C-alpha cells in the first residue's frame, strides 16, 4: 500500500475526530477546511496512474471551494453573529468520541463486507467515506448550533465525495461541477439563513427553534 495515501486517509479520519471532539466552533471550521484540502488532493493519489488535466482542474476546484472558500464563508458568518463560540453540544465530548470510535469500527467492518463489482482503489477509502458520512450525520443531530449543523452537512457531503472516489467513479464533468455548485449554493444560502436567525433570535441554537409544531 502507498504510505502517502495511507497517511492522507488517516489524517482525514483524524479531522473527523477533531470535529466531534472540539469545543470551539472555529476549531471545527478549521478541521473541516483541512478535510476539504486533503479530500481535494486525494483523487490525485488514488486516482488513475497518469494525471489528466481534468482531474487536476477538478481537484483544484475542490480544494479552493471546500478547503478555502466554505471555511472563509463560515468564519465570516461566525464573526458577523455575536454568539458564544462554544459548541454546547447535546451529546458530551467524551461520549461523542466513544460514539465516533463505534462508528469507525462499524464503517471499517461494513466496508469489508460489501461486495465490490470492481476493486476499490485503496482498501481504506470506502471505510473512510462511510465513517465521514456517519460523522456528518452525527454532528447534525448532536450539535445544536445552526453553524455546526452546516459543518455536519459539509462533512457528510465530503464523505459522499470520498465514496465516489473509492470507486474512481467518473461522472461527466458537467455533473461534478453541478454538484460542486449546488454545495456552494447550499452553504451560501445556509450562511445567509444563519445570519438572519442570529439577528432575529439573538442565538442560533436550533433546538430552541420550536415555535412550529403540532
Amino acid at each position, binding site marked *: 500500500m502507498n504510505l502517502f495515501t495511507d497517511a492522507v486517509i488517516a489524517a482525514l479520519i483524524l479531522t473527523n475526530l477533531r470535529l466531534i471532539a472540539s469545543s470551539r466552533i472555529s476549531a471545527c471550521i478549521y478541521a473541516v477546511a483541512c478535510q476539504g484540502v486533503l479530500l481535494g488532493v486525494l483523487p490525485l493519489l488514488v486516482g488513475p496512474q497518469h494525471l489528466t488535466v481534468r482531474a487536476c482542474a477538478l481537484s483544484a476546484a475542490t480544494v479552493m471551494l471546500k478547503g478555502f472558500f466554505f471555511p472563509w464563508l463560515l468564519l465570516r458568518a461566525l464573526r458577523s453573529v455575536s454568539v458564544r463560540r462554544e459548541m454546547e453540544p447535546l451529546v458530551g465530548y467524551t461520549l461523542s468520541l466513544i460514539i465516533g470510535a463505534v462508528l469507525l469500527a462499524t464503517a471499517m467492518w461494513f466496508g469489508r463486507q460489501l*461486495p*465490490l*463489482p*470492481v476493486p476499490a482503489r485503496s482498501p481504506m477509502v470506502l471505510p473512510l467515506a462511510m465513517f465521514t*458520512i456517519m460523522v456528518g*450525520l452525527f454532528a*447534525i443531530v448532536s450539535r445544536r448550533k*445552526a453553524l455546526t*449543523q452546516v459543518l455536519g*452537512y459539509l462533512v*457528510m*457531503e465530503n464523505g*459522499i465525495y470520498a*465514496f*465516489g472516489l473509492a*470507486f474512481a*467513479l467518473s*461522472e*461527466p464533468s*458537467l*455533473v461534478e461541477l*453541478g*454538484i460542486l*455548485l*449546488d454545495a456552494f*449554493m*447550499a452553504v451560501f*444560502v*445556509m450562511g445567509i*439563513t444563519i445570519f*438572519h*436567525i442570529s439577528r*432575529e*433570535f439573538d442565538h442560533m441554537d*436550533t433546538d430552541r*427553534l*420550536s*415555535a*412550529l409544531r*403540532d
Partner: protein
Amino acid sequence: MTMIALLVLLPIFAGLAALVVRSDPFRRSILLAAALAHVALTGYAWVYRPAAAFSGWLLLDDLGLLFLAIVSFLFLAAAFYAVGYFKKENWGERQDFAEDFLFTNAREATFTCCLLLFLAMMSLVCLSQDFGLLWVAVEATTLASAPLIYFHRHRRSLEATWKYLMICSVGIALALLGNFCLAVAATLGPDKSVPMLVSSLVANAGLLHPLWLKVAFLFLVVGYGTKLGLAPMHTWLPDAHSEAPSMVSALLSGALLNCAFLAVLRILQVCMAAGQGQFGQKILLVLGLLSMALAAVFIVAQTDFKRMLAYSSIEHMGILSLAVGLGGAAYFGALFHAVNHSLTKGMLFLVAGNILSAYKTKSAPDVRGASKLLPVSGVLWVAGFLAITGSPPFGPFLSELIILKSALDQGRFVVAAAFLFLLAVIFVGMAAIVLRMFQGTPEQAGNALAPDGSVVSSSESAFAVIPPLVLGLAVLVLGVYLPPALKGLIAHAARAIGG
C-alpha cells in the same frame, strides 16, 4: 435542441430580468409573460415533441412531459395570483397577527427572481434524463425555493426555512450517495460502465449489479422521499407549507412534490427493468400507507387550516407512493392522481390565502361564515375540500377509484381496507374543520371585524379568485371527462414505468 433548452433558459433569463427591473408593474408583467410563454412552450412541445438535446441528457419523454405540463399550468395560476398578491401586499413594516412582533417582506424583485428560477429548476427536473443532472436539479429546487418560504421576514417563517433547507439538503445528500451506488451498480468492468441515462440503464438493466442497485434504490427513495414528504422524513413539510405565502405553498405542494415523485419514478423504472421491482414496490407501499396514517392522525387534531392542507399533501404523496407500490393498473391511477392532486391542492392553497388575508388568522376555529364574507372563495373552499377527499364528481374520485380497484383486483384486501379506512378518517377530519369555517356568520370570527365591531366587507379581486376558479373547473372537468390527449399521455407514461 433549442426548444428543450428554452424551457429552462426562458425562466432563468426572465428571473434575471426581474431582478434588475425597477418598475413594479413591468416586473409583474415579466412574471406573467414568462409564465404564459412557458405554458405556450410546453403546449408546443406536447404537440411537436422536441428531439433529445445535449447527447440525450435532456429529453422530453411521456413521463417528463406529463409532470412538466402540471408544473407549467400550476405556475401560470400561481403567477396570476401572485400579481394580485403583490398589489394587495403591504410592503412596509407591520405587525404579525399571531405574535405581535413587527416584520417586513423580502424585496419583490428578489422574490420574483427566485420564483422564476424555481420554475426553471423544476422544468430541468422534468427534462433531465441523466441521474446526476436530475440530482443537481432537485437540489437546486430546494435552494431556489428556500428564499420563497422566507418571504415574510419573521421568526416562524425563518424557522420553517431553516428546517426546510437543512432536512431537504441532508436528504438530497443521501440521494447523491444513492446516485453513486447506482453508478457502482452500473460499473461492469475496470473501464466499462453503463451511462447514467435513464434510457441506457433501462436498456442494460440486466447487467446491473443487483445488490448495489437495491442499495441505490434505498438511498434514492430516502433522499427524494424526504423531498416528497413521505412519512418518517416529512417533518419539514407542514412547517414550510404553512409559513410560505399561499402561491408558494401551492407551488411547493402541487409542483415541487411532483418533481420529487418523478425522481422516485425514474429509479423505480430502472429497478423494474432490472427485475428488482418487487423489492422497491414493497418499500413504497409501506411508506405510502405510513404517510397516509400519519396524515390522518394529524389532520383530525388540526386547528391550523394551512397545516391541514400540508398534511393532506403528505396523505396524497402517500397515496401516490402506495399506488406505485401496487403497480399494474395503479400506475395509471397514480399518474392521474398526481395531476388531480396538483390542481386541487393548488386551488385549495390559493383559496386558503384568500381566507387568510380576509380573516387574518390561520386558526380554523377563528374563521366563521366564509360563505357570507367571501362568497366565491367560500364555495371554492368547500368544493376543493370535496375534491381533495375524493368525492364525486371531481377528478381525485376517479383516480382513487382506479387505485382502489387495482388493489382489489390484485387481491390485496388488507391494503385496500386500510386505504379506504384512512380516506374515510381524513374525510371526516377535514369536513369538521372546513364546513365549520364555511358556516356561521362573520360576526362570530373576531379577527375579521373592524375595530367598531362591524363586518369589514372585503371584495374578492379577480386576481385572487380566477386562478383557483380555473383550477377548480379543471378538476371538475377531469372528473367528468378525461381528454383523449391527456389520457393517451398518462397511459404511455404508465407503460414506460412498467405497467
